[in-house]
């Protein structure tokens, strides 16, 4: 639409980037934190700070717990809105599907249950509905988590991780859609950014902090974007792919009869029953199936532990059991063996993956990161943070480039963008650090302990927006907002306090966790201390620079008299 292709791409990059960049910042930051979600869980629920445990006996530990788990109230409410007629009372619902799994980073065994509901769905394209319940088993005791631990907020997996893919905007699943649009924007921004970059190879390694601020900000934006380009593209692409069936549901919406018949045909090939028979059946020993599966993997040259077990059509004669390998040693997930639930005989073993599914498995795997490779895990964490740096410097460049022009024209555009950038960069850090601190400081017997932590997070974030707005006035006249430095100081203080609070409330200080080799907690503490140091350093540089500029401005405004007096 502009004169040249490059100019069109610059237009797209600037304005789409501005519109969705704030959200991209949030998505990338909480995605980076989610790389260590289980570790943050341990930090936020100290009672669960234990070494990772393998799956316990299914027959002796898991099965007795099943009847005690009821569907989640929120999920009942969701289902009630999607089906015709009132749902049966919770007590009468029986579990018809079980999934238990653990991994090398989790001291708890996670358990998800599915309950069939008899109601017909409102949307005729949908299959009959389910509601879900979940719990966690403490392998040390073989019991469900007790002492209200089930309801405690696991900040990593239950708050930061959902923030990453749906921003906690549940209404009409809007959060998922926004994240999807932001993800597509990221892809478009990466491609258009490469197109508009004039000297992509010549300036590959170029960062010139001594040049003017506009130039050095652009250098940093280009450098982070270009050097991390493969990571940024693939991580965004794979993230979008995970939700692609949700974002673009046209196959189900337009071709449901065909899809249904294909599913039946594919189920027929595997021999796994698609539907329950309607007759009650007693499950055979699942422990036996687990050891069978392990023996088969060892035979095939891929010895390993069981990562998950699921039972489909539980309680029915058509029940079958799927045993999956804990794929700690590879990116993609493979190896599932299905057993007849009544006889324990092998029913079907997933064949070697075909190319298309293998590519998908690799992309999913690199995004979910279930593998055991701490070096790679840290590299991906840093990669995500580089993405944040790229987005943040994009804002800084936008403001820096326009603020003088806006100041001359009397526009507040750049000061608004600057305030939003402050909120989405340092404000987000302030809110995160405050939440971590609140997690350690709030008494655990406080009613609605989890809601308190979440509310503190949101209100702190809102407060940083207000603060940024109040402080951004100088930007409108071509100056710099002091909110950046002030919020950096806040991050440094809060993150340090969170580490100290962890020490005071649990006794797990760094020397102890490091000498015990308990890395989940030591790692979270170390990252927070590094963040505090980085924020403090940034704040120091920023305030020194602003003092320098204020002094320079004073000198310039009163040249003759001032310089003689000083």
């Amino acid at each position, binding site marked *: 639409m502009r004169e040249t292709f490059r100019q069109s791409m610059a237009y797209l990059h600037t304005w789409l980037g501005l519109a969705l960049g704030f959200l991209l910042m949030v998505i990338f930051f909480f995605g980076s934190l989610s790389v260590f979600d289980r570790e943050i869980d341990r930090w936020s629920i100290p009672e669960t700070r234990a070494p990772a445990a393998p799956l316990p006996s299914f027959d002796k530990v898991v099965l007795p717990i099943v009847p005690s788990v009821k569907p989640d109230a929120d999920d009942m409410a969701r289902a009630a809105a999607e089906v015709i007629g009132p749902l049966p009372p919770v007590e009468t619902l029986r579990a018809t599907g079980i999934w238990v799994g653990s991994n090398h980073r989790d001291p708890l065994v996670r358990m998800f249950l599915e309950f069939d509901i008899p109601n017909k769905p409102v949307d005729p394209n949908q299959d009959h509905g389910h509601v879900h319940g979940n719990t966690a088993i403490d392998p040390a005791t073989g019991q469900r988590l007790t002492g209200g631990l089930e309801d405690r907020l696991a900040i990593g997996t239950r708050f930061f991780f959902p923030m990453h893919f749906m921003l906690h905007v549940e209404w009409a699943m809007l959060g998922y859609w926004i994240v999807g649009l932001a993800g597509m924007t990221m892809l478009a921004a990466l491609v258009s950014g490469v197109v508009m970059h004039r000297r992509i*190879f*010549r300036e*590959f*390694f*170029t*960062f*010139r*902090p*001594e040049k003017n601020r506009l130039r050095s900000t652009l250098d940093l934006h280009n*450098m982070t974007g270009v*050097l*991390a380009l*493969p*990571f940024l593209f*693939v991580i965004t692409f794979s993230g979008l792919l995970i939700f692609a069936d949700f974002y673009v549901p046209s196959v189900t919406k337009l071709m449901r009869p065909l899809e249904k018949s294909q599913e039946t045909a594919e189920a027929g090939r595997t021999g796994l029953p698609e539907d329950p028979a309607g007759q009650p059946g007693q499950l055979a020993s699942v422990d036996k199936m687990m050891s069978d599966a392990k023996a088969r993997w060892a035979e095939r040259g891929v010895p390993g532990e069981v990562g998950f077990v699921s039972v489909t059509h539980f309680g029915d004669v058509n029940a079958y059991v799927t045993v999956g390998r804990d794929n700690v*040693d*590879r*990116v*993609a997930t493979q190896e599932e063996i299905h057993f007849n639930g009544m006889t324990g005989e092998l029913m079907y073993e997933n064949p070697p993956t075909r190319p298309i599914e293998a590519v998908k498995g*690799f992309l999913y795997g*690199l995004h979910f990161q279930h*593998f055991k*490779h701490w*070096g*790679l895990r840290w*590299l*991906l964490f*840093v*990669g995500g943070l*580089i993405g944040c740096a790229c987005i943040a410097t994009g804002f800084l460049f936008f403001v820096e480039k326009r603020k003088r022009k806006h100041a001359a024209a009397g526009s507040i555009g750049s000061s608004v963008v600057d305030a939003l950038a402050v909120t989405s960069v340092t404000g987000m850090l302030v809110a995160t650090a405050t939440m971590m601190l609140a997690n350690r400081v709030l008494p655990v017997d406080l009613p609605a302990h989890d809601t308190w932590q979440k509310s503190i997070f949101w209100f702190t974030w809102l407060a940083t927006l207000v603060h940024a707005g109040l402080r951004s006035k100088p930007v409108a006249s071509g100056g710099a907002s002091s909110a950046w430095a002030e919020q950096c100081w806040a991050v440094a203080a809060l993150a340090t306090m969170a580490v100290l609070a962890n020490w005071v409330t649990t006794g797990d200080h760094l020397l102890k966790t490091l000498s015990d080799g308990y890395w989940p907690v030591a790692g979270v503490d170390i990252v927070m201390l590094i963040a505090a140091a980085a924020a403090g350093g940034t704040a120091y540089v920023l305030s020194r620079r602003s003092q320098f500029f204020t002094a320079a401005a004073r000198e310039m405004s009163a040249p003759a008299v001032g310089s003689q007096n000083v």
Partner: protein
Amino acid sequence: MSDAGFLLAALLTAIIGMACFALSIDTHWAQLLGKRERAIAHPLTLRVGGAALLAIAFFICTMADPVLMAVLVWTMLLTMAAFVVALAITVHARLSAVPRRDHRAE
């Protein structure tokens, strides 16, 4: 050698490879080595050498991990290596620029 050792070796190889790429760019050559003649270090030679080193880094990665995992590790290591080189160039430029700046300030 342990897996960590292989990864460290791969990172170092990648850094040297990226440094070769940086030196094949005239601006950086001048920044780092001043007016010194290129002699045998022709840009093309450096680029081929750099590419070869990055390939060797990948080979080292495959010694620690299965191929698909190694692809990921290698990609991330390349990014980190490039950052290390860029940082080194920046720091070098800053250090060598300091006297001149002080002079100007006076």
